[in-house]
């Protein structure tokens, strides 16, 4: 019993030091703008890159399909941490040696580029599954009215697919929040970097606990939201059967990995 108490006491001293918590929290909150910047820019770029990649993957042109497939496979396989290192240090070394100075990226730019390229691959998979979940009758009806493939995608298939992918994209956004912390390895002064710095100064890991607390605090509402959106989607898809709209299996779209495992429903090409 006594040894257990000793354990608790040690944990408290190292991880829940009240004095350090009070010092660290405002420091970390001050990094939120930079975390937000990483988040919003990466979300924006990965959304559009992912959309383009998914359309390439479903295109009639073999070169597009091949490129998008290779891209997605590569970036889904590459650990994000290594992506950060390559984009930041790798490009900088090439830039310095070759005189192509523009390759020497500021760390924030490198971080956004790394996050965007990797998350574009995840988003592409989510979008692809979303598009394929729209009943092929939708594309056929649009084409039979004389719309081109592009018009049919834009006005008929994508508006429905976007609704389907909002819950899985919300989940991706949550993962993205946490993954901004990896930017600390290339010295972006974001939340985790600042916490680690403080940890060095006070020679105590309590700042890490504060960092964990802030991440969890910001992700929990989104996690609740994603769950709500998925429920709503599940309830809403029941009536769609007869219209030949969404096929209803889309509620299973939880993450990029699950999305990738979805059976092909569409065959949307025409």
């Amino acid at each position, binding site marked *: 019993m006594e040894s257990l108490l000793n354990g608790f006491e040690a944990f408290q001293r190292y991880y829940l030091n009240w004095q350090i918590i009070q010092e660290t929290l405002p420091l970390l909150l001050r990094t939120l703008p930079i975390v937000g910047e990483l988040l919003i820019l990466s979300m924006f770029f990965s959304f559009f890159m992912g959309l383009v990649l998914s359309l390439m993957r479903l295109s009639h042109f073999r070169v597009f399909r091949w490129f998008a497939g290779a891209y997605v496979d590569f970036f889904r396989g590459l650990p994000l941490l290594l992506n950060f290192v390559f984009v930041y240090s790798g490009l900088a070394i090439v830039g310095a040696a070759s005189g192509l100075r523009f390759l020497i990226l500021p760390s924030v730019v490198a971080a956004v580029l790394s996050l965007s390229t990797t998350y574009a691959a995840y988003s592409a998979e989510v979008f692809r599954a979303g598009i394929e979940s729209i009943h092929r009758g939708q594309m056929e009806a649009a084409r039979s*009215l004389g719309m*081109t493939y592009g018009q049919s995608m834009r006005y008929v298939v994508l508006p429905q697919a976007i609704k389907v992918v909002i819950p899985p994209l919300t989940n991706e956004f949550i993962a993205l929040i946490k993954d901004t912390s990896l930017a600390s390895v290339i010295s972006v002064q974001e939340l985790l970097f600042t916490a680690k710095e403080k940890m060095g100064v006070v020679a105590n890991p309590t700042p890490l606990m504060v960092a964990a607390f802030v991440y969890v605090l910001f992700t929990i509402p989104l996690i609740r939201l994603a769950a709500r959106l998925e429920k709503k989607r599940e309830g809403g898809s029941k009536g769609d059967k007869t219209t030949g709209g969404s096929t209803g299996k889309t509620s299973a779209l939880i993450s990029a990995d699950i999305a990738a495992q979805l059976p092909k429903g569409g065959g949307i090409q025409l």
Partner: protein
Amino acid sequence: MSTAPTMIELQGVHKSYGQLEVLRGIDLQVTKSEVVVVIGPSGSGKSTMLRCMNALEPIQQGKIIIEGIDLTDSHTNVNKVREKIGMVFQSFNLFPHKTALENVMLAPLKVQKKSRKEVETIARDLLVTVGLSEKADSHPDQLSGGQQQRVAIARALAMQPDMMLFDEVTSALDPELVAEVLNVMKDLALGGMTMVVVTHEMGFAREVGTRMIFMDEGVIVEESDPREMIANPKEERTKKFLGMVL
């Protein structure tokens, strides 16, 4: 009849899905204002034939000519040809994210690039024609099957097509909703629309069909006046099939 222009012409059409040959040499001519009723057992290739007529499916052999334009010619702009062919599906395929009115308006707006005002007038008139003026702002999931199918017909008509293809458009409907859809189709036929109708509604075939085609295993087995075929089928397979559906 001989002076009426040919709207649809199929010459020796063969269509396969991989190894499976679904259409095995189809020859067919449809002239203006004809109502051709297509019957045949499930899997005989009726839907496939209709889908080939507006190039939703490529064919491997033969020719399909729509109003003098060869669909199989690689220089043909199939989108342009499809504008002239309205198609209505068994499963309605209305756009669920749009209201009835928006469903009808979409293609004229985006394809024909007409003004919104002009298109809305056309669309509202069409909804009146199919008896759904009060449902203009409803989404498909708020409509019965029969209402959805009538919106789908209005949507196809909004492009002012020269011909209409109907693929078992009443098969997914509850029996009491079949008549409202057939009545719209009858009015269309009376108005002189060229129509190819896959259906098992023999009453409709007798009343408005100008010709009947019996298909089996990818070929046209028998072809004649609908009343004649229903009363006196010549081929053994036709007799057997009609015996089952009548």
